[in-house]
């Protein structure tokens, strides 16, 4: 089964860029990605640029309405994701708990629909 792990965190809740803690944090991400690949569970995974770079749109009456900013203004922002191929929810949750941002943000795990 495929699961999408959505990584949410409040801006500036993690270690600051340039500090030794930030390096440890990023190394944690590299190590986690390497582990997923080694286990054959990695499908895709990326970090996203900040919500100040987000553009949202909707189609209403055949017209595209474009807006500056994310879909919802929330305290925690979607900052990245992993798409994993694993046997069940327990395995997906076990991996999700290893995502470095889980220590200060929230990881939402959603099964991917199969058609």
């Amino acid at each position, binding site marked *: *089964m495929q*699961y999408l792990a959505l990584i949410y965190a409040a801006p500036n809740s993690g270690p600051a860029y340039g500090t030794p803690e930030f390096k440890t944090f990023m190394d944690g991400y590299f190590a986690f990605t390497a582990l997923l690949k080694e286990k054959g569970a990695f499908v895709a995974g990326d970090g996203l640029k900040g919500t100040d770079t987000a553009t949202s749109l909707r189609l209403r009456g055949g017209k595209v309405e474009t807006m500056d900013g994310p879909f919802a203004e929330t305290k925690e922002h979607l900052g990245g994701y992993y798409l994993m191929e694993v*046997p*069940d*929810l*327990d395995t*997906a*949750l*076990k991996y999700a708990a290893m995502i470095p941002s889980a220590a200060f943000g929230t990881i939402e795990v959603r*099964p991917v629909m199969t058609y």
Partner: protein
Amino acid sequence: MLQAPDPTQALNLTLRADRGRILAALIARVRDFQLAEEALQDAATSALAHWSRSGIPSRPEAWLIRVAFRKAIDRLRSHSRDSARDTAMTVLAQDEAEEDPMDIPDDRLRLIFTCCHPALEPKSRVALTLRTIAGLTTADIARAFLDTEPTMGQRLSRAKAKIAAAGIPFRIPDPEDWPDRLNSVLTVVYLIYNAGYTSGPTTGQDLCREAIFLARLLTTLAPSDAEVEGCLALLLLTHARADARISPEGLTLPPAQQDRSLWDTHMLTEGLATLDSAMARRNPGPFQIKAAIAALHTAQNGPGWPQIAALYTRLLAFEPTPVIRLNHAVAVSEAGGLGEALIHLADIEPELADYQPFNAAKADLLARSGRAAEAHTAYAKAIALSDSPADIAFLLQRQSLLSH
């Protein structure tokens, strides 16, 4: 075996004893709660027809499981084919052909872990466990939790749908996850007991019995686990005193003031023996500590408060919650540390200000410190927050004893 007089009665007896086991065997094979329940329902309907015509089989449970497997195959056949369904059908066909279907391994432990999975809402875990393992009807569960039957039915359907859609596995957790996952299971058992206990001595009896049944079942399915035994011991040691917890005048009584002749000594002895067996395994956990505290409350010469306070300190390492801190403070006050206990209460007041037991404990501590006016106010707040008439009667009596 003894022939039951009529097919309906025989079927009900068989289902009461073996429903959970048959359902677990079905779910293990088809991986689908709904389909498993429907197959068992089909088998039960078929049993009534057959048993009325040809008599009750010598082993009704073996008959029922075999027919339930066959009905599951029928239902799978009518679904669209895929490889998972084909595998399930092959396994079902093999097991259905078994000489004695009751020889197939008991899958109930896996089923319990699925029903109590932390990805489900706590209330749904309780409802699903009662429905699937204990075999209560949706109507029974709705009544116990003051819900309407359709609401409870929807809750159960949502939980079953999430198990299927989210890929919640049907298996025993890995050793490194065992303590946490088992704690989730035992917490469900304890919540069931507590729901029975708080709804009063008559109406709640059934849920208390169901919880003890589940705890006993777990001791047979996971026989060498100290926490499972700790949970059973806790329930037995609490339940043994259930008949004595309300005075003839309708007041809630603390263990030290209860009429010991009303305690169930047989259950008490079993609870203490179960606790001993757990502690001999040298693998302490929160349920064993709570059972040990319950045991100390039954001590012949009154509760051993210094030991109870020490056990609460150990419990805090597992469960650092404000409620445990409250219980710890009460034990400290009983062990002679009234001033220290009041400091602990002040620390947790922001979190527990609207919690009835907090206000009752605070009132008692203030009364014992000679602060009558403050105690009076705290009793009033505790009374306002009480649901049970017995608690209100007890608190009103304590309040009236304050010197002005």
